[in-house]
């Protein structure tokens, strides 16, 4: 239970609001705060090899995140969708690209 409380507190950190211009603040939308919290706990509980396996898969997740962000941008500008619709709809793209890359590399991302 303590582990999940720590995960919750560390993963919740937010910074991007304080920065301008907006495109620069957007960089923090892809900040590895969840990764730092999770990897810290993974190293402590399961060892370095476990954390390394996670970061190898994270490579596929990060590529999917880049594609996801571009798709969200296009849906907002071209399709004129609301942010909540665009971000939630694009999660399908993230899942497809992330798992697609994982399958394509045979689980060796």
């Amino acid at each position, binding site marked *: 239970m303590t582990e999940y409380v720590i995960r919750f507190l560390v993963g919740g950190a937010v910074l991007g609001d304080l920065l301008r211009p907006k495109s620069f603040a957007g960089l923090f939308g892809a900040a590895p705060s*969840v990764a730092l919290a999770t990897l810290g706990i993974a190293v402590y509980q399961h060892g370095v090899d476990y954390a*390394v*396996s996670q970061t190898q898969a994270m490579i596929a997740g990060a590529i999917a*995140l880049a594609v996801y962000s571009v798709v969200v941008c296009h849906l907002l500008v071209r399709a004129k969708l609301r942010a909540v619709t665009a971000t939630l709809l694009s999660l399908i793209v993230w899942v497809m690209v992330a798992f697609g890359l994982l399958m394509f590399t045979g689980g060796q991302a």
Partner: protein
Amino acid sequence: MTPIRFSPSSLKEGRWYEYLIRFALGGAATVFTGLVSSRYGAFIGGLFLALPAIFCASATLIEKHEIRRKREAGLTGGRRGQLAAAVDSAGAALGAIGMLAFAIVFSLTAETSVATAFTGASCAWLAVSIAAWHLRRKTRSVWRVRTEQGSGSEIRRSR
């Protein structure tokens, strides 16, 4: 070119519960990743380290704040809100390149030293993200100047 700056006043735009939602989403994403890892293994769980959970909330809030600001000025602000969220998502795409660098550096250095891996990966994220942002900015301003010069010479030719 707008310089990078801290804007503490932007914190006043948000309501306390909006920040609570973002904080909760970040925390929930971390818990979720832990649960996926323990059920399906480190590899599948690792994918979710790059889940855009916080981004969904922040893009929605940026749109909401922009709409609120424009409404106070007597405008609808719907389109402006969408464009503000789009700029944020363009930034997130560049941040994702930084996240890719984070993952690569961590996986290459963790077996040597865990402390170096965390420090190196975080620095790699920051350096690559900022470099990508600068590069995009320069490319866009050069492209804009060329477009303006091109349209200017076309106007002169048509006279």
